[in-house]
């Protein structure tokens, strides 16, 4: 149980949480807005997956697949973080 925590520890937990969120959001932004939209044409010209140009693939499938995986890693990391700082629910 986690009733008595030093403020410092809780702050460290929150800061770790913010770092995890920031990293995941950076990936989220990269696969969709950067690969799927901004540089889609360049990626299209550079590489193809089967018949799918890479930028088109990111826009139609890749970004969504990464989103699903990302939430998975976020859940995994946060559940570990909860245990590390002993702030998880009873």
């Amino acid at each position, binding site marked *: *149980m*986690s*009733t*008595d*925590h030093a403020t410092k520890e*809780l702050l460290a*937990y*929150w800061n770790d*949480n913010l770092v995890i*969120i920031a990293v*995941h*959001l950076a990936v*989220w932004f990269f696969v*969709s*807005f950067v690969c*799927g*939209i*901004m540089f*889609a*044409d360049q990626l*299209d010209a550079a590489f193809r*997956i*089967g*018949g*799918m*140009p890479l*930028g*088109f*693939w990111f*826009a*139609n*499938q890749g*970004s*969504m*697949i990464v*989103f*699903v995986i*990302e*939430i*998975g890693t*976020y*859940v995994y990391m*946060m*559940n570990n973080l*909860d245990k590390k700082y*002993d*702030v*998880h*629910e*009873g």
Partner: protein
Amino acid sequence: MSILAWTWIITGTSFAAYIYIAYRSRAKTTGAFYAAEQSVPPILNGMATGADWMSAASFISMAGLISFLGRDGSFYLMGWTGGYVLLAMLFGPYLRKYGKFTIPQFMADRYYSNGIRVVALLCAIFVSFTYVAGQMRGVGVVFSRFMGVSINMGVIIGMALVFFYATLGGMKGITYTQVAQYCVLITAYLIPAIFISMQFTGVPIPQIGMGSTVSAGGAAILGDPSTQGKYLLDVLNGIQRDLGFANYTEGVRPRIDVWFIAMSLMIGTAGLPHILIRFFTVPKIRDARSSAGYALFFIALLYTTAPTVAVFARTNFIKTINNVKYESAPSWFKNWEKTKLVAWKDKNGDGIMQIAKGAWNDPKSKNEVKIDQDIMVLANPEIAKLPNWTVGLVGAGGLAAALSTAAGLLLVISAAVSHDLMKGIIKPNMSEKEELVWARAGAGGAVVIAGLFGIYPPGFVAQVVAFAFGLAAASFFPCILMGIFSKKTNKEGAMAGMITGIVFVAAYIIYFKFVNPAANNKDHWWLGISPEGIGTVGAVLNFIVMYVVSRMTPAPPQHIQDLVGSLRYPGKVKA
């Protein structure tokens, strides 16, 4: 057995299941009515969220819409899935820790102001009604196309069903019927897609089939042996170029606009009340995190299939219709002509159907064929020559998608009326029993209004869907985010930011959609951002105003800052 018989059997069975589930999970407390007693397992909450999210439009229209837009259409795909990453990390776990029942209530507590509650509940009601109007119409349309009853009769049947399970079971009833509805809709969507992928490419996974080469069987269906062995997308690009369109895999819309629309849809998704309240229904905070993951997985199953349906259907449609004599048109074309989703007008009198740029009924265009976007999904089973029962399944799937979304939205409206307006503001001393009566009355009233929207569809519905996302993006998203991640943001800041966001977005959309629709093109848009993407700018304005005003006015009281602090830790925290 005939298609009609199968449709009635499958739809009837699924409706009976929904009614039985709703009866078994009827609500006796406000906790059950608003939040399903916080007892929904995360996988089931993920399915319910998926059904809540995927509407009649996602099921019936999205693939067709994308097939006309090519790569540009992907802003729908990324926009309507990317929001779940935000929900999982920025909102879900903290709202679950807060644990109460509605978004306006959260805003009122966090910003210690009933004024905010009123603005928030008005936004929630407006957004939900905008959305629900299309759903009831969708129910009527599916009924009329698949079962030959009138659209109005279809709306009334849908209303009766939703009325029954929303007023009886509240969130609890809705959740478990949505789980069943998810299963129906995803099966109905995937089966035809898998079969079509098999027939065209020999690959049973449509997501891979889209990037594969056309098989011998596929070339036979397309009636063009030269396509065999070529990549399907190359074949489609070739067809597009021959007809004077851009390559399917290339974007033509200004990139800045695509960017802003995708962002607006993402943060709008994360700010939609009917999705946010789903996080109140799980037992624990870690369940809130994982249920966002399950939800996105279940949604992505359909959303990654939709673009493949778009590619297969478009290739097949053009190949088998364009330059083909009307007498030898495939039988599905003639079947669907009755519904007016496809039509042909022999402008040059040669008896051959020609597809080209422009509208089919525009005498100046060479195009002779009308292609409604909905045909791409609805006619899929017949195009693929699938057995009759799959056609019935698609009908039941469309109904499941429309009904589940409608129910989730109606609950938001009902809770806004009973919990926020009546209990929260007008009559705080009311008993739980009385509140439940109001909640049921609110849900019932909302069903009737939504049904009327379905029977008498206001012409502006299509125009204001952009509004729902823009408004959610510019009002709820920034205020909830700052409410969790910034202790110093106060009620003055939130109020000023929210009003700025709402007024800006409303003014921009009203101007281009109603005041001066002739100017609604990229030459007149501000920085080339369409009304669909303006919610992003509204959100940024909201953030800036909220930050500045909060710094200029007194910080929130200590107990509010402590409340924010407690949201950040899953366990109990001593103040």
